[in-house]
């Protein structure tokens, strides 16, 4: 470290009270920003849970569909039409719906039911208990063991319940990558059983899952599907569509954005004010340095270094604190939706840089304007 930066460092950290106040303020701001954005990222991740868990590369749907939960059934001919598109290796139907199950103790529980293509069971989850073939047995359902699993009374293989007056039997316990957003258990069964058990409209195909022959074939498939009057999206495009829906059409994004902005403003005001006070209290020292012969650029470097050091330290502490809180929350609440993503970290870093920059500018403007003569006059 260069000598003058070492001096700046000691001036900063040796003033323990001020330094602690600066760290607390900025760490709190980083903590808030990361917590807010991580919760939002977690919610968006859970909102796309089915897309992630099913794993299809291309999804065909009605153009008015924005989430998996709000599917609009398509007529059967669409499946045939999609299958006939050049570049499609195969295409299978997916049923997605919700139902009420009656447990053995007489209570009801809402569930999400996913009906997989009978022939291929494409999109089936990983079974930790039971075998895939058992899904073909009579009244068979696989249940996902996630944070909602206890709501079905922690079923085991062979557990029975009623679904729309139909007998249902658990033949498999599954695990998936991401659990759902709405806090209800998920059941997998075959497509035909799903539409047989759950009251449906005339059309029953919620989505068509497409495996293209190659990535290059995807644009042509999307275009041909559009010509049919439907919408084909890659899984990433569908996840973006879902995220866009939650961000801009539910108020969720606006609320999180507002809270993030508020935490930014709180952080900026705390650290800006504290840093400015720090500069004011050391103004005579900066003036003395200027009188002794420090150039304006040297003083600017010192202040920039102090602000940057504080910002980066706070950034690290804020990440640590928010990660710790999220980890702790997930231990207590398995369904807690929060995911620290690189994008969140990048956003928080950018905001911290802005806070440091504004704090520095305030300090530098004040220090550059000091007249060393004022030091002589005391």
């Amino acid at each position, binding site marked *: 470290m*260069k*000598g*003058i930066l*070492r*001096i700046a460092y*000691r*001036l900063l950290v*040796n*003033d323990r009270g001020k330094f602690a106040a600066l760290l607390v303020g900025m760490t709190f701001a980083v903590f808030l920003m990361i917590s807010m954005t991580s919760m939002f990222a977690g919610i968006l991740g859970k909102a796309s849970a089915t897309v992630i868990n099913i794993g299809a590369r291309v999804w065909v749907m009605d153009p008015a569909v924005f989430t998996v939960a709000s599917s609009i059934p398509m007529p059967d001919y669409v499946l045939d039409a999609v299958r006939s598109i050049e570049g499609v290796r195969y295409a299978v139907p997916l049923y997605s719906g919700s139902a009420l199950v009656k447990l053995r103790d007489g209570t009801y529980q809402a569930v999400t039911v996913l009906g997989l293509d009978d022939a291929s069971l494409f999109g089936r989850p990983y079974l930790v208990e039971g075998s895939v073939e058992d899904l073909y047995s009579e009244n068979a359902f696989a249940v996902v063991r996630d944070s909602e699993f206890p709501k079905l009374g922690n079923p085991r293989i062979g557990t029975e319940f009623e679904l729309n007056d139909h007998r249902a039997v658990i033949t498999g316990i599954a695990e998936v990558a991401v659990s759902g957003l709405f806090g209800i258990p998920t059941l997998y069964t075959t497509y035909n059983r799903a539409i047989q058990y759950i009251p449906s409209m005339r059309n029953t195909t919620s989505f068509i899952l497409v495996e293209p022959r190659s990535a290059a074939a995807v644009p042509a498939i999307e275009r041909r599907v559009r010509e049919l009057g439907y919408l084909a999206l890659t899984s990433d495009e569908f996840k973006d569509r879902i995220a866009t829906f939650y961000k801009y059409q539910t108020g969720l994004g606006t609320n999180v954005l507002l809270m993030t902005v508020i935490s930014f403003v709180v952080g900026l005001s705390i650290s800006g004010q504290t840093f400015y006070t720090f500069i004011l209290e050391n103004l*005579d*020292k900066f*003036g*003395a*340095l*200027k*009188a*002794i*012969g*420090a*150039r*304006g*650029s*040297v003083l600017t470097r010192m202040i920039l270094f102090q602000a940057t050091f504080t910002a980066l330290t706070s950034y690290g502490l804020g990440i640590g604190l928010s990660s710790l809180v999220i980890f702790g929350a997930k231990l207590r609440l398995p369904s807690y939706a929060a995911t620290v993503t690189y994008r969140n970290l990048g956003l928080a870093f950018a905001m911290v840089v802005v806070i440091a920059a504004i704090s520095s500018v305030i300090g530098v403007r004040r220090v550059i304007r000091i*007249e*060393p*003569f004022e*030091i*002589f*006059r*005391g």
Partner: protein
Amino acid sequence: MASVAIQGTDLNKWFGEGDARTHAVRDVSFDAFFGEMLYIEGPSGSGKTTLLSMISGILRPTSGHVTLEGQDIWAMTDDQLADFRLNKIGFVFQDYHLFPRLTTLENAAIPLVLKKTEWDRAMDEAIRYLDVVGLKDRAALPPVKLSGGEQQRVAIARAIASQPDVLVFDEPTASLDGDTGRKIVDFVKREILTDRRCIILVTHDARIFEFADRIMKMEDGRLRRIEDARPH
């Protein structure tokens, strides 16, 4: 005859505007020589500190020139002027302006650090200057642990660390008791003043006049006279 260290010519300084405009220094010209201890003396408000600030490069005069080694310092750019202060002038402020968060050694090393001397070398050099002022054994302490006289000595060590041609003291005895003040100035005259250095000292403390070589008497911003204070 000693050579001229710094020269002030027709120096004027106005402060304020309109009715509040004040003529703080009026047509002051003088020469300060190497090897001498030159006092600027006068009552409060006579323009002593303003004059000292102009000749040390921290307050631009309204008119007039300050020349060091044939160069008008007020014709310099801001950065050149900062370099001039760093290399040619050593400051001992009235309130010392030491950094309480740094050690005594680090305080003394500041001019060396500003001159981009490598850190360890700067500390090695600074300890030598602390030794000169008799505070080598206090190097690791923060200035707040030192007495007023010791703090004054640290400020002197800091001022001489860059080996300046001109040392300026602003009211060096103002914060010290009479005995300590006399000892400090005596020390400065004996140990710090050399043939290649000029010391300019602002004071109105008559108890230290015995150490002056010449005394510039200021009054109402004017230089009334320059007295030769050396014993004949």
